[in-house]
């Protein structure tokens, strides 16, 4: 091994010194292609054939590779939007609610959505009648919720406005889980409802939604289930 390694080294050194000389001497440019490996050139040099090596091929096609750029198809499966409406908080009056919505359309039939809403509770009839007794502090009257829901476009269709205009629409059902923060407490919340959506353009939708948020509370001393109904109007954009 040692000997052959040394020999190889020697041959390479010989080739590297001999080859430029050959090229200078020969000038015979239409010879064989560039030696692929130093070992091959070494054997060549050792054999004393002394063939000239060309710097470049005679025909050097200056063809650039065509770069095929595939334009990406823009997909619009996400929707982002805002909504506002009325939330009826059981025992605590009805107030304005506003929120944000992010949805992902899985298929033409199903979608997932996350909503985040905010409202404010009023006074119970007891508080109003008694005049001064406050059940909740001011900050405890803030009402926020989130819901992670799945929706089904139950009745897709089109609506016609006049003779020339048709807009895509869908009536959908939604159910989900989430949490409600109210009266200084977080409660596991199950929600459900329906909605109607019209698309004035391909990338924008107007929604009308009705939801029921159901959770357990013992705020008024006794544990009970509350149903908080919400109706809202929203606008969302596909992206």
């Amino acid at each position, binding site marked *: 091994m040692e000997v052959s390694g040394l020999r190889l080294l020697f041959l390479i050194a010989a080739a590297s010194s001999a080859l430029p000389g050959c090229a200078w001497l020969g000038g015979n440019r239409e010879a064989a292609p560039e030696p692929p490996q130093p070992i091959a050139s070494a054997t060549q040099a050792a054999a004393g054939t002394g063939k000239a090596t060309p710097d470049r091929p005679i025909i050097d096609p200056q063809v650039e590779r065509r770069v*095929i750029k*595939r*334009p*990406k*198809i*823009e*997909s*619009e*499966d996400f929707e982002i939007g805002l909504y506002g409406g009325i939330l009826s908080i059981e025992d605590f009056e009805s107030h304005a609610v506003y929120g944000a919505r992010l949805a992902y*359309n*899985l*298929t*033409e039939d199903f979608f*997932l959505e996350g909503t985040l809403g905010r409202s404010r509770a009023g006074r119970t009839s007891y508080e109003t009648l008694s005049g001064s007794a406050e059940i909740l502090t001011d900050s405890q009257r803030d009402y926020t919720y989130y819901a*992670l829901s*799945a929706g089904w*476009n139950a009745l*897709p*269709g*089109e609506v016609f406005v006049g003779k020339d205009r*048709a807009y*895509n629409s869908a009536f959908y059902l939604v159910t989900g*889980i*989430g*949490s409600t923060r109210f009266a*200084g*407490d*977080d*409660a*596991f919340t199950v929600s459900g409802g329906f909605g109607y959506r019209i698309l004035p*353009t*391909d*990338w924008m939708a107007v929604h009308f939604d009705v939801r029921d948020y159901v959770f357990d509370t013992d705020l008024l001393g006794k544990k009970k289930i509350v149903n908080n109904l919400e109706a809202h109007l929203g606008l969302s954009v*596909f992206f």
Partner: protein
Amino acid sequence: MIRSLLLVLVVVFAASAQAGDKADDKLPKILIADPYIELHSGPGRGFPIFHVVERGQEVVIIKRRTDWFEVRTDRDVQGWVERSQMLATLEPTGEPLDLHEPARENYMSRRWQGGVMAGDFGGASLISAFGGYAFSDNLSIELTLNHILGEFSNGGSATLGLMHVFVPEWRLSPYFTLGTGVIYTDPKSTLVKSEDRTDQIGYVGGGLQFYLTRRFMLRSEYRHNVIFTHRDANEEVKEWKYLGFAFFF
């Protein structure tokens, strides 16, 4: 206020009109290879077919929504085409249109995964969101955020763990998971001796993932948690995630 809102609206509409006017050469162009393709008035199977484009003609793809593609013909007719018909079209290079679809055969090559699960955490309701990155077909790292809503306390946890899917090529595939993180507990104020606390948590668990379709999976998981409390004894909590939904991208 209203004026500025109007201004914004006008700008948005102008921008969208601009986008619409943008030359079609930026949009992908395809050649119809089927005898014809059908243009629906909306992205759904029920929407009426109002136009057909014959073989040999070219259309541009404007956008995709779920399994429907909005296309425009050279006569400026715009409509929605179903995915199955798009698969029979050709690109300008003559190759069949490549939609880069994540199918079951190549879903293992998808590296990112995210989803939501719901379940039970030691008797409390649990809402869980997770995101993961796969180093290899089997092994991935996963971040889980839990929202725990109980009768006596609320809380949340954030955990980071490793997940090993034993046979990822199976449609229903079991996995093993192991990790650690922090848990925050906020006892309800009506209880005596209540105190907010943040503890370290460790878990070991397993689950099943079921490949549904396209890029979607169902998941179900069990974790056995050990909470390293500041008290004398550690707490052990069983965590069941009955059902979850995941998608990879």
